[in-house]
């Protein structure tokens, strides 16, 4: 292997040359002949009955081609937007999924829900047309608040108490018994604030229909174009799957919000056949705020039972999760299988019981957002562990160490369904404390106090289940899709390699990481590997990128395809060496045989494969191209220790993060620079949640935070110079020993920040986001 470009090398990202010079090709950069423009007409009301829609004035606008309303899609057989994971309630009944037409027909249930769309020659004409659409609404009482939704006006006919499901996990009796035997019980009521994803590139779609071939092509900002294609074909009934090609070109960030199948691309691809011309739509920023799936929004009561020595005996968690107005594509799995299953954290707590009630409100649908369930779980576990340590007058580090699952206990079966394959939590903790200069904290605290500031320190030891995941397990739990990944490795005649992957890169750098993997295993130059993704017309199938699954599942699929390439290469080489393939070795890009002193370079075997002179074609097919579908045996379990130190100015309530140390165990790492970048991005988003970001609806259901004037994103000045390091216990069940790094920072950091802030203020809880105003008010209440 090549130390400059192989596995473990911090190779500069191939894709950045085009991104930083403005040469990326995003959906909105693509224009096709005859293209028209589309603007959606969105509900200004949180909940209303649509009495009538008058499109006459809109049709009269110069340049408007067609105005569509929801009823026309229904008449044409277009189905509802489905939720792809059926969660079952405690009582055995399946979740309630209210009808979710792509374009509202008789009712609107959140501000921003589309009820019509205008197709026009220009964007300006489409906007003018959209303004001229007149709807007569009968305004109905809206439900907004998560905690009280189940006792409010019923929104959907089929959902009494506004409940989607009431789910449980774990052994209730054993947990109750643990509480009965406990010396101490810590309780914590906490909320996990609603977040709005804000990828830098807004969602967009360009749909076109080719009447000559009866085929549709959809360019869109999807994290999983194959899944988009299946859903549009099978559930929404846009077109037969074979006649539908979905292309996700360069995509500027997703963070989960681009996993889902939305109204807009559905409408655009369907209408392109009606209009007979391609249709383009791109969200403006306020549309993104209104109509992208939001994240988090939990209200939780947690209780932790402990012995007087700080041994964790039982954990009870009861959560109300706000699903918004409808069940988005994977929303049901987020506060259940991606949340309750993580409640063991890094600890050997023997009894855990989790309940999640999912409720509907008249707000935008809530679905997976970076971490998806796992940040919420980590927030519960790490906030209550820290609180318990304070109540027991124990060092929070010692309390954690006492309860960590020890390294020799793996594989470890948790009481909440998961089996952790490997980990060494004390090692990550030890390294984090060392980097954080843990022992000299008292001097820093004294210095802060000398300056009239309050200093606090907080920890967070997160675990996540990612690399999602074993298909048969998730299908048995209600998932409507498998979660394997596909890869095709196509060796060219000259020995260069084209890889088609079902993973999708929207900022992750797969073109680099996957090329490193291929170059390392085949011993060929890094630059002769080309990675292609995001096109259902070019790769067989794929389940896309989310849940930090690309390297663990997509990378492993490539690795399996490479195994097949090498195996076939050995067969070809065996004929050249006049031996059998079991006698041929492959290493460092050379096929060799003990009986020959002339090893065959990979490129020579590639040439021989396509110019088949040396082997019998009745035994071996020509060519060198292999596919693999890899289905993991388990999730992967990245884990880490984060330490945060804050300094708060009591006169203004401003929190400054002065130190943030992240030590993560991602198993083996292909490109440390990319991994570090992922951690930085995750930390920025997690700190954004802790200090700044909050999606707020007013009592009438208006989104009060509909622009950057009211929704605060983290900026460079809000963030410290992160100190990032790693430990490694390689994953035991995938061929690369990798775990995945995409979400860790966002999962682990909010609890670390909030533990530090509550430590500084000497209070049990401060609601996120801890804005200066909130912190200042907390200080005033205590004074």
């Amino acid at each position, binding site marked *: 292997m090549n130390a400059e470009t192989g596995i473990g090398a911090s190779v500069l990202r191939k894709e950045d040359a085009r991104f930083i010079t403005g040469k990326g090709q995003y959906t909105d950069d693509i224009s096709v002949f005859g293209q028209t423009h589309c603007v959606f007409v969105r509900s*200004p*009301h949180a909940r209303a009955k649509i009495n009538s829609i008058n499109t006459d004035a809109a049709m009269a606008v110069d340049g408007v081609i067609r105005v569509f309303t929801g009823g026309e899609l229904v008449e044409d057989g277009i189905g509802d937007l489905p939720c792809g994971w059926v969660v079952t309630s405690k009582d055995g009944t399946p979740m309630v999924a209210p009808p979710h037409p792509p374009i509202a027909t008789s009712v609107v249930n959140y501000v921003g829900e589309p009820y019509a769309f205008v197709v026009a020659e220009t964007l300006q004409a489409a906007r003018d047309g*959209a*303004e001229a659409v007149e709807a007569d609404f009968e305004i109905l009482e809206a439900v907004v608040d998560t905690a009280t939704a189940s006792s409010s006006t019923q929104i959907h006919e089929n959902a009494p108490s506004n409940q989607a499901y009431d789910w449980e996990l774990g052994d209730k009796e054993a947990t109750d018994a643990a509480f009965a035997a406990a010396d101490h019980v810590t309780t914590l009521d906490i909320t996990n604030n609603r977040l709005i994803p804000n990828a830098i590139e807004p969602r967009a779609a360009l749909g076109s229909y080719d009447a000559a071939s009866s085929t549709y092509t959809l360019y869109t900002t999807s994290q999983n174009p194959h899944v988009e294609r299946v859903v549009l074909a099978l559930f929404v009934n846009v077109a037969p799957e074979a006649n539908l090609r979905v292309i996700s070109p360069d995509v500027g960030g997703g963070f989960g919000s681009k996993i889902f199948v939305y109204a807009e691309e559905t409408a655009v691809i369907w209408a392109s056949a009606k209009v007979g011309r391609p249709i383009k739509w791109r969200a403006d920023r*306020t549309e993104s705020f209104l109509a992208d799936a939001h994240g988090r929004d939990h209200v939780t009561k947690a209780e932790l039972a402990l012995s007087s020595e700080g041994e964790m005996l039982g954990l009870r968690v009861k959560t109300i999760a706000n699903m918004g107005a409808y069940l988005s594509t994977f929303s049901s799995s987020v506060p259940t299988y991606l949340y309750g299953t993580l409640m063991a954290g890094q600890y050997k707590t023997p009894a855990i019981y989790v309940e999640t009630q999912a409720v509907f409100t008249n707000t935008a649908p809530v679905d997976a957002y970076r971490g998806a369930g796992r940040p919420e779980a980590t927030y519960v576990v790490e906030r209550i562990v820290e609180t318990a340590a304070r109540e027991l007058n124990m060092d929070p580090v010692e309390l954690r160490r006492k309860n960590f699952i020890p390294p020799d206990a793996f594989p470890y079966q948790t009481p909440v369904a998961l089996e952790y394959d490997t980990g060494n939590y004390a090692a990550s903790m030890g390294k984090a404390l060392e980097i954080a200069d843990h022992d000299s904290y008292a001097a820093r605290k004294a210095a802060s106090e000398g300056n009239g500031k309050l200093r606090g320190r907080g920890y967070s030891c997160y675990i996540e289940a990612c690399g999602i995941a074993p298909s048969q397990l998730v299908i048995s739990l209600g998932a409507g899709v498998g979660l394997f990944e596909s890869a095709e490795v196509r060796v060219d005649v000259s020995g260069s390699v084209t890889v088609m992957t079902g993973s999708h890169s929207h900022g992750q750098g797969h073109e680099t990481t996957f090329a490193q993997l291929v170059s390392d295993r085949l011993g060929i130059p890094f630059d002769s590997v080309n990675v292609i993704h995001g096109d259902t017309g070019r790769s067989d199938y794929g389940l896309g990128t989310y849940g930090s699954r690309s390297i663990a599942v997509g990378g492993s699929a490539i690795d399996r395809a490479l195994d097949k390439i090498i195996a076939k290469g050995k067969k070809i080489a065996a004929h050249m060496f006049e031996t059998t393939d079991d006698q041929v070795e492959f290493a460092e890009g050379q096929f060799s045989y003990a009986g020959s002193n002339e090893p065959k370079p990979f490129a020579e075997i590639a040439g021989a494969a396509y110019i088949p002179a040396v082997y019998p074609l009745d035994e071996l097919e020509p060519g060198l191209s292999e596919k693999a579908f890899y289905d993991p045996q388990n999730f992967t379990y990245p884990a880490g220790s984060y330490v945060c130190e804050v300094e708060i100015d009591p006169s203004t309530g401003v929190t400054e993060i002065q130190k943030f140390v992240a030590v993560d165990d991602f198993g083996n790492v292909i490109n440390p620079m990319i991994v570090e970048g992922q951690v930085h991005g995750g930390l920025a988003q997690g700190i954004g949640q802790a200090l700044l970001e909050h999606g707020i609806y*007013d009592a009438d259901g*208006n989104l*009060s935070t509909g*622009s950057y*004037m009211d929704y605060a994103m983290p900026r460079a000045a809000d963030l410290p110079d992160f100190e990032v390091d790693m430990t490694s216990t390689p994953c035991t069940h995938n061929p690369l020993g990798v775990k995945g790094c995409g979400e860790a920072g966002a999962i682990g950091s909010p609890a670390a920040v909030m533990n530090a802030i509550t430590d500084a203020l000497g209070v049990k809880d401060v609601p996120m986001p801890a804005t200066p105003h909130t912190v200042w008010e907390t200080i005033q209440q205590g004074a």
Partner: protein
Amino acid sequence: MEEQGEFVIPASPQDVWDALQKPDILKECIDGCEEMTVTEEGIFACVVAIKVGPVKARFTGTVKMVEPKPPHSYVLEVSARGGGAGFGSGRAEVNLQEVPEGTTLSYVVKGTIGGKLAQIGTRLFQSFSRKMTRTFFDRFSQRWVR
């Protein structure tokens, strides 16, 4: 959204009452008012151009006077639409009371706004509406100040 306030106007309750019924006076006093007409007894139709932060729009609305008790009190029911910019509706209770300086006009307004105005203008709307109200009464009071 709820607002209340009071202004002292240097005129008798009857004069204030009469002036408040006249569309041309109202038009002159409402900042940005482009049209104000009486469509029927106690109902005004108006067009007002406003700018709240980044939202700039021409609102078309109706103002309906209910429960008139001249010259003491009345209730206004207001609804307005600003096309893509949003909409607003509200109810204002207005009371006139004779004082040595003239008349104290007090009001309580309850209202809602929606659409773009609510999404990107909420934070600014309260100060906007206060300023608009103050401007109205400044101009209105000026009629009696020479």
